[in-house]
Every structure is written in C-alpha cells, then in structure tokens.
C-alpha cells in the first residue's frame, strides 16, 4: 500500500456483525446480514454495492441515526447508540440537507453554535472551511441561490468546519453533472489530505470508489454482507486523467466489478478469503 496516512493507524471505527432486519406486519425484510468492517484513523474507505443493497442503512447505523438489530458499532472506543460527537455527514440530497432558511454561512456555523464553540473561533473555522471548498465570498447567499455543485460544497464545508474525526458521505456526488462531479472528487481528495480526516464513503459508482479510496469494501445485494475488501494500491497523488487511464486502475475496477456481479450462489467465505489474500499480496 502506498498511501501513507492510513497505515499503522489505530482503528477508529469498528463495525461488528451489524445486522438490520425491518419487521412490519406484512413481511420481514433483512437489509444487512452481519457486516464486519474496520476503518483506521485517517483512512479513506469506500463502500460499494448494488443500489437498494443496504448501503445507506449501514451509513445510518454508523451515524447513530438508526439502531442495528444485531451487532454493534464502536467509534473511538465508544459504542454508538446516538449520533456521536465529531461526526460529520454529507448526504446526496444537498437541497434537503442544507437548511433553506439559513444563509450559507449560517448553515456552516450552526453545528458549531450547537457545540458552543466561542464566537471568534467559530468565525475562523467557518471562514477557513468556506475558503477550503472554494466558496469564500458567497457566505451571505442562500443555498438555493447556488448551483447544485456549490450547494454540495456548502454541505462539505459544514462537515469540515465541524472538524469531524469521521466523515460519513452517502453518495454525495450522485446528483451533480459529470464535470462537477470530477471537481468535487478532487476537492474531497485534497481536503482528506489537508485535514487528515477519516472518511467512510458510500457510493454505487465503482470508478469513483477506486479513484478516491485506499480501500474498497464490496457489499452484496440484500441482505448485504461484505463480499470482499480490495486495497487500492494506486499512487497517493491522483488525477482525473492519468489515474483513470492507469492500467492498474482498470484492473482494480474490474476486480470490484467482478465482486459485485458475482452471483450470490458461490459467495462463500472461501471466495471472500481468497480475495482478501490477493489484496494483501499485491
């Protein structure tokens, strides 16, 4: 593995046998079937899987927004039962996640206010976060006055200003156009390095997962379990053009793709173990 920040770090997030079964009067649906996952301090980990495969359910359980029906989530040594402090979150639906009645600045500032950060420090944090996402100068605008990509930058700035130990992102770039998406991916990669945040990134886009991450976790279709973990041994400095045309990038994305498409029938612990073996040796 080449990207240094994650190596040897202590485990920040541990997901231990987390299962989720929705029970209603008509039927019982198992969304997650025992997910095991560990994310080290400073690591960038993506979770990919088919749509409707329980990725978002997993994210909500990790965020403490939804109780698991089996297993547990431990963040920084503490069991998650409610949204933990120092957790940043970015949803796909920026238009609904940002508070429409607050200006850009107030949106970024609100979690800090709630945390009772002193005013001067708060101002500095907000200024820096807006600058970091390239939005200095639009603080007094309302989110809806901005383009979709810029709105998602506001949501990212809000998370950054909060100085989270863990940043959860749920398909954050799925609702913007391709050009903007590339820009936002590169922005996120820069911020990850600049602030040494730990990122758990949910996406259905294999290319995006490989491009951004140090490690890709593949979930199967519902009830989802971890099918494989694939280490991304691409150079730490990544670039939309050269990285995506790197033969190794193509190999990795093919590996991930094969894991997702693998029929559930031969999804056994043996296959999963062999993949893990492979990632260690590469």
């Amino acid at each position: 593995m080449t990207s240094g920040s994650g190596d040897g770090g202590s485990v920040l997030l541990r997901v231990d046998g987390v299962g989720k079964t929705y029970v209603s009067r008509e039927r019982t649906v198992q969304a997650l079937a025992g997910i095991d996952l560990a994310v080290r301090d400073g690591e960038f980990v993506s979770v990919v899987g088919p749509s409707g495969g329980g990725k978002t359910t997993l994210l909500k359980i990790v965020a403490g927004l939804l109780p698991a029906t089996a297993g547990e989530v431990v963040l920084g040594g503490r069991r998650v039962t409610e949204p933990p402090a120092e957790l940043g979150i970015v949803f796909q639906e920026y238009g609904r996640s940002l508070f429409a009645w607050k200006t850009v600045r107030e949106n970024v500032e609100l979690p800090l206010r709630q945390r009772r950060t002193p005013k001067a420090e708060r101002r500095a944090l907000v200024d820096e976060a807006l600058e970091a996402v390239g939005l200095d100068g639009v603080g007094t605008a309302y989110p809806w006055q901005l383009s979709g990509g810029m709105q998602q930058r506001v949501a990212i700035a809000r998370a950054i200003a909060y100085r989270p130990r863990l940043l959860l992102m749920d398909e954050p770039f799925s609702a913007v156009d391709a050009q903007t998406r590339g820009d936002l991916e590169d922005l996120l990669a820069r911020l990850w390095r600049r602030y040494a945040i730990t990122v758990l990134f949910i996406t259905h886009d294999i290319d995006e997962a490989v491009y951004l991450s140090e490690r890709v976790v593949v979930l199967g279709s519902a009830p989802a379990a971890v099918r494989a973990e694939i280490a991304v041994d691409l150079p730490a400095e990544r670039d939309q053009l050269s990285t995506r045309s790197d033969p190794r990038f193509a190999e990795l994305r093919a590996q991930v793709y094969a894991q997702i498409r693998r029929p559930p029938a031969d999804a056994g612990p043996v296959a999963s173990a062999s993949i893990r073996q492979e990632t260690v040796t590469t």
Partner: protein
Amino acid sequence: MTARRSRALAGARGVGYALGLPVVLLALWWVAGDGSANIFLPSLREILDAFGRVWFSDVFVHDVVPSLWRLAAGYGAALLAGVAAGYVIGRWAVVRALASPALAYFRVLPAPVIIPVLLVAVGIGDTTKLIVIAFGALWPILLNTADGVRGVDEVTLETAAAYRLTGWARHRLVLRAASPQIFAGARQALGVAIILMVVSEMLMSTDGLGFTVIQFQRTFAFPEMWSGVLLLGVLGFVLAKLFELVERYALRWHRGLTGRQEGSS
C-alpha cells in the same frame, strides 16, 4: 437615469392598478347615490361626512381602541396556543392519533356558537370576547402547524440529528422549516379573528366597533352606520397588508426557493 425612471413608471403603474377599480367604484357610488332620498342608503358624501365626524373623535379611543386590543389579545393567544399545540400534534404520532377525532369535530364547529355558552359560563366581560376570538382563530393555525411540522423533510431532520441539534435547537429548526405553512394558517386565522371580533361585539358589548355599528343602526343614524362598515373594511385591508409585510420578511428565503424551483422546472 432611465432605469430609475422606468422603475418609477412601473411603480406608478402598480399603484394605478391597485387603486384604479376602487376609485372608479367610489366615483360611481358618489355620482349614483348623490341626492339619494332613501334614508337607508345615504349618499357617499353624507357617509364620508359622518366618517370624519364619528371616527376622528373620542369614539376612536372609546370604541376603536378596545376593539383592536381584543383582536390583538385574542389573535395573539390563538397564535401561541395554535403553534404550540400544532407542534406537539404534528411531531408525535400518538398525540395525533388521540387528538384527531376531537380536532375533526372542533374545526367544523362554527365559533360563534360558543357565545351563548360563554355568556352563561363566563359572563359578558372582555374575557368572553377574547375566548371567542381566540377559539375561532385557533383551528386554522393549529391544523396548519400540525401539517407543516409533520411534513418537515426527513433528510433535514437526519442532518440535524447527525449534528446533534437537540432540545431547543431542534424545536426551532422544525418550526422554522414548517413556517411557510404556519404563516398560511395565521393568515387565514386573521380574517376569522376580525369577523369574530365584530360578531362578539355586536352580540354582547357596550363598546367596540361592532357595538357602535349596531348602535347607529338602532338609532337610525344610517350615514354613521355606513361609515362604520367602511372603517371595518379599511381596517381589515390594512391588517392584511401588515401581515403580508411580516410574512414577506419572515419567508423571504422561501419565496426565493419556490420561485427558483418553479422557474427551473
């Protein structure tokens, strides 16, 4: 220069449109009613004459001010109670299930019907009038608040929860998100409150606008009676405009938001 001038022109045109029809109607009334021999339908000249005589005197202090005070107190109480109860009903499904049948009953109950009940139970004082006004104005506010609170976006709530916005911060957030609907209810309630102010004063009062108009009618002072009708219309119009100003300011974010969505779709 030209931009300012065209804006001034547009403003003048707006005022022209707003005042055009009322001015024409008043002029028609003035001309058609002039020299009217019918004592029940006096001419506009007489009515305006009476208007100045009646309302720009101590009647204003003795009758208009008490009316406005009752309206403000009753409406204010309805706002507080309606938003608080609507919030609780909108937020918790259990409360909603418990309250729904009673709400369905009270929302269709015509508010003036409680006047005889209150006359017996509470008496003829100001309290009765305040209760009538507040009771009638409560339901539109309560039901709209409950709807608005219930409909607050789930992603908004999850974001708030993830950033640990709990307690008062969360209540404020939910109310703010529901404020467009709360304002819709409050606007409706303002009209109801004015109606109930007049009705309650007509039925059980010794002062106030409603009482004065009835009094003029009973003493065959018809121009004066008509001037009271005119004043109530003006009052309703001014209050509606004031409400609009407050709403515009409080919901400026929402107007822009919905305007953009409509524009881009």
